[in-house]
């Protein structure tokens, strides 16, 4: 009542061929072909910055009489507007701009930090890095600037972060 089967030896050969085919597919594609992500003699600069722009508007000083009316946990002497400026970051490699982006502040009230995360592939070797940031809403110029010479061996992962306490770019 079933379809005609291969004769004995052929049947086992057929089964063996099927198992072999599956083994070949499994064995090969489980780690081949290789994926080449980065060209030879290339390094990567990874920019990772979390920085809050300066507040829009001036902070005001609260009057003593008003302070008494507020809750004890909210008796700050300074009253600042929540909204922050966007942050502009630019990276130059040997004088050539390789990254430039203006990032708005995060948060529903635009009062959070601006986040940057970017991978930039660059040729390996010795380079001059110019890193600039503007966070005050000014039209011209930058609020922070750092220049540094770096030696990048092939496949090096160089991280650029911004240290708010020291108000400077830091290379790791």
């Amino acid at each position, binding site marked *: 009542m*079933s379809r005609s089967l291969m004769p004995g030896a052929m*049947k086992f050969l057929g089964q063996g061929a099927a*198992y072999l085919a599956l083994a070949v597919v499994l064995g090969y594609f489980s780690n081949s072909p*290789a994926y080449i*992500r980065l060209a030879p003699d290339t390094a990567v600069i990874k920019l*990772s910055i979390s920085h809050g722009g300066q507040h829009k508007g001036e902070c005001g000083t609260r009057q003593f009489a008003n302070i008494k009316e507020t809750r004890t946990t909210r008796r700050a002497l300074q009253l600042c507007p929540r909204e922050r400026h966007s942050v502009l970051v630019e990276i130059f490699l040997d004088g050539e701009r390789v990254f430039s982006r203006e990032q708005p502040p995060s948060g529903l009230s635009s009062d959070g930090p601006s986040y940057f*995360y970017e991978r930039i592939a660059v040729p390996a070797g010795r380079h001059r890095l110019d890193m600039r940031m503007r966070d005050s809403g000014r039209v011209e110029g930058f609020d922070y600037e750092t220049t540094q010479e770096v030696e990048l061996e092939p496949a090096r992962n160089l991280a650029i972060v911004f240290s708010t306490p020291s108000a400077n770019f830091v290379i790791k």
Partner: protein
Amino acid sequence: MNGSASPPQPHPHPLRRAAQNGLMQVEGWFDSAFGPKLNPLTQLGALGYFYFWIVAATGIYLYIVFETSINGVYDSIEYLTVEQWYLGGIMRSLHRYASDALVITMMLHLLREFVLDRYRSVRWFSWFSGIPILWLAFASGINGYWLVWDQLAQYIAVATFEWMDWLPLFGEPIANNFLTRGSLGDRFFSLLVFLHIALPLFLLFAMWIHLLRISRPRVNPPLALAAGTFAMLFLLALYKPALSHPPADLGMVVERVSLDWFYLGFYPLIEIWSAGWVWLLLVGTSTVLSILPWAPPFKRSSPAVVDAANCNGCTRCFEDCPYGAVVMGPRDDGRPFPSIALVSADLCTACGICVGSCPASTPFRTSTQLVTGIDLPQFTLDKLRKDVDQALARLKGESKVVIFGCDHGNDIGKLASPDVAVFSLPCIAMLPPAFMDYVLTRGHADGIMLAGCRENECFHRLGVEWTELRIGGKRDPYLRDRVPRDRIATAWLAPSEPGELAGRLKAFRDNLMAMKISAAKDGEKEHSHVS
């Protein structure tokens, strides 16, 4: 002679029909080598479970010796792979290859069910619940690769977090966790191990849900197939053990990785396209797959209905329904039986298998209108009897044959002729054995041919199996002993094999003719002997 047929089913789209024919061709080759019962293409779901258990069992061993500190994780895997190759190394390789085989079986299973159009109507649940299984299986596998903490793990971890960062869920980019050497601590690997236990558990839970609406699901492959596939994995583990890349170093970029393309094949797209496009591809594909069951053409038939006066609560329909659409409930009609069959309309595909299993489905009953215990409103047993009676009355020729076919098998209409009557049913198991008895013992036909789906590939899962068992006297309702079995032929064939069906019909009719001639000669001999 075209006797009758169940209400016409929409014809498959030409592309789907072509794909079905191609699939049947390939499955035919596997049938030839493995036999229908061991054909791996008809056991994909069961094989998926089998691979899952191999992954789980080997994973338990790997977990025992796994070191979860950032400095010990790579060394512990290397120890297993190199020093303890004869046990830990084989376990690791089996863990990987069985995981990869699971992806292959899942994808083939999905493709096969799609091509065979087995995802509509009540089958939406199994199809729909299969989509989370894909996500969980991939998440489990990808998470597993992180645990080795080699360069491949570094690449996947960073790429995954960068990919996740595209979603507006996190404030600070979570990829910052992998920014420089020393960014990671031991707790990270404790978290990964936890995930690598939790995700497969969720996967197993989803696999259980996937089968909830299937009666008698096959979750274990036949022993010979399980042994064969395990032996293949074992030999592969010996011949090509799973190895690690060099250890991860976040101070360096991974330039070249040997990807496991089964799990990680989409990762290069994150860099080649963008994270957003890959999200769109995967979420979009999943969404389209999820809504496919509700895409046209719509073909929902009316569910089976129970006639309380003819149902004695024998439970045969409950036992035979492939979809668990029949349940037994208490009855309140005063009849002296403890229960009555109840049909869940949401689960019923109107396959008619319950009609074939009902002992009241006998055409020998003398009532003008044949009413059985459970019936299909759009294609009643009474209509089938009337059609059969009319067709039998018109049959002419030396070897009169009645063919009962299946809507999902071969198009038997082409075989109709003055001495061949054809009846297409929603499923071959809708035909009660008493009908075969009726056709043959009344002397209206010389033979019956049952033409259904290929063995183990029945559209309604169990129709061919139940029919075989009923004819063989191994499943109630039995075909009575008085019915000559040599006058019944079965042809379990794919729709792509009309030539084979025609050949089988010719051979069957030749055989019937030979039997007729032989019987005539025996009759003459007996007559001359007596005289």
